[in-house]
């Protein structure tokens, strides 16, 4: 072929635009944010470019920050568990549908991702409010006497985030279900296994990698989510993302906000890389 690449530098040239965009728009701002977290700040003097560990010391010693981070990861874990409970069976059912129905249902599944996060979350606020549809319905049925607290609670945030993030779990699990031998359930059945045993012993172990990679995506997105916790959680229920936002834009303490943001990033990267290592080692034979 005349287009054969003989110039060994060509790959670098070809990837350069993407690399520059990535470098300029992701790496540099992140580096600057990390740097900013070591700057000084005062109510009247503003940001002072002088090296200090003050912000980090404040995060480490003030239990308020500990509480916010604890809540962030608690919400992320609950959301991950909820998406597993909903997403795994849903992916399984989708996988067994006829192709026509599957594409319709797939669209429904991906639907939430097509709606603006703000519109969707405000929709949840309408549903979950004390005079919202859910509470009015439950009260009309006589199941509860007083409205349940959804707004400004972790429960509300978990519900809203689960709704947004469940498609990621479904797609991830579905991908690993598609790699399953279509006859494998029949094989297990012919050997005497009932459906529960088939699920527990044959299907689940094979889709664990899909569940775990879905969990990593959902966990990371839930822990760093901003809009849903901001609208449903409000001012009272802060998570790491909304905390950083408030430090930046309300208190105007940019260095402290930068420290919070950096810590969230580092913690997430550590958790994701760590669990990924663990998964790959544990499920080596399924991954091939």
């Amino acid at each position, binding site marked *: 072929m005349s287009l054969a690449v003989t110039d060994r530098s060509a790959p670098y040239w070809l990837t350069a635009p993407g690399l520059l965009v990535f470098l300029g728009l992701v790496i540099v701002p992140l580096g600057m944010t990390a740097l900013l977290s070591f700057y000084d700040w005062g109510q009247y003097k503003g940001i002072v470019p002088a090296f200090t560990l003050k912000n980090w010391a404040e995060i480490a010693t003030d239990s308020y920050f500990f509480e916010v981070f604890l809540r962030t990861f608690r919400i992320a874990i609950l959301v991950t568990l909820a998406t597993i409970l909903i997403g795994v069976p849903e992916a399984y059912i989708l996988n067994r549908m006829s192709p026509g129905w599957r594409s319709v249902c797939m669209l429904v599944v991906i639907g939430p991702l097509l709606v603006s996060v703000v519109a969707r979350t405000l929709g949840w606020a309408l549903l979950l409010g004390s005079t919202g549809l859910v509470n009015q319905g439950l009260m009309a049925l006589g199941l509860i006497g007083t409205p349940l607290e959804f707004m400004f609670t972790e429960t509300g945030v978990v519900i809203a985030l689960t709704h947004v993030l469940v498609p990621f779990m479904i797609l991830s699990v579905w991908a690993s279900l598609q790699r399953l031998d279509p006859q494998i359930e029949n094989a*297990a059945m012919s050997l005497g296994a009932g459906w529960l045993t088939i699920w527990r012993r044959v299907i689940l172990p094979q889709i664990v990698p899909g569940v775990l990679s879905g969990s990593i995506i959902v966990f990371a997105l839930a822990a760093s989510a901003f809009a849903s916790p901001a609208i449903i959680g409000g001012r009272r229920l802060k998570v790491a993302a909304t905390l950083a936002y408030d430090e930046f834009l309300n208190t105007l303490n940019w260095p402290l906000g930068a420290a919070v943001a950096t810590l969230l990033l580092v913690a997430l990267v550590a958790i994701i890389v760590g669990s990924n290592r663990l998964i790959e080692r544990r499920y080596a034979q399924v991954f091939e």
Partner: protein
Amino acid sequence: MSHLVLEALGKSYGAVVAVEGLDLAVERGEFVSLLGPSGCGKTTTLQMIAGFVPLDRGRILLDGGDLAAVAPNRRGLGIVFQSYALFPHMTVAENIAFGLEMRGVGRAEREKRTLEAMALVGLKGFAERYPRRMSGGQQQRVALARALVIKPALLLLDEPLSNLDAKLREEMQGELRQIQRSVGTTTILVTHDQHEAMALSDRIVLMNQGRVEQIGAPDAVYGRPSSAFVANFLGKTNMLKGSGDGAGRVLIDGFAIALPGAGPGPVALAVRPERLVLAAPGAPGFGGRIAGRVFQGSYWLLTIESAAGPLTVMRGNDGTAVPAEGEAVSLSFAPGDAALLADGGAS
């Protein structure tokens, strides 16, 4: 009472009839092949026996009991799938022991029987291997051991050799037959490969479009095909047009052959290429001319224009001279080598 009896078995998918009026009795220890082109209903039949597909019509009896009333996971049948369907997250030993575990067999007994099954299929020393680290042939042995270790009432094989290369397939055929003989399990094989069916089975059930075309021992079905479909599907054949004289004889260009059952008027005969005998012109027979010849090593393949239509003749390489292209020859065959086709050669 036969071991397995299929009675007027039928299955439809909407308006499409997959299997219709299938009657078959399989004796204990017999090896029966369901053979036919894709879409002939052979796999559907196997799946109805296995219980993966509910049957619409007819009955399946195992030792006289209604098998269709038993849940698929309680039927106790050993099945080898085309894709093997091994559990990739389990070792070979775990795969094989799975069925025993489901039956609540104790650990010591389980290990003993797993090792026996592995020895039976020639997989000693592979216990801790994962299926993905094994060749296709080895995976197929695991699948066979997994199916046999539960001492199944029936062994169902769904195109078990189709994913292997030709050489390995031939090797596994011999081994499969030998293993089946030694354990004596009644076996039903589904295949589209005529050679596989002929090499392995005691009897062949030739199916076409959901119906049985012919049932019989491989050599009987091959030698006496009942229809043009069977004759063409199983090996190569020549279709000869002749006319019956109404007195049990068929005439082809003056060559008379006794075939009781041949009615008056045009008839169609099937004669295998290796059963047509060539002779010098003038010998008893019908006339033909060599149109082409191809040397195949152990035999010659001759194409001949004859009074009965174009023919293929297989002539053994016995060291004698072979007629050259364009030479006139006389062709004949013994009455026992011709099969009268019921459908008059249609299809």
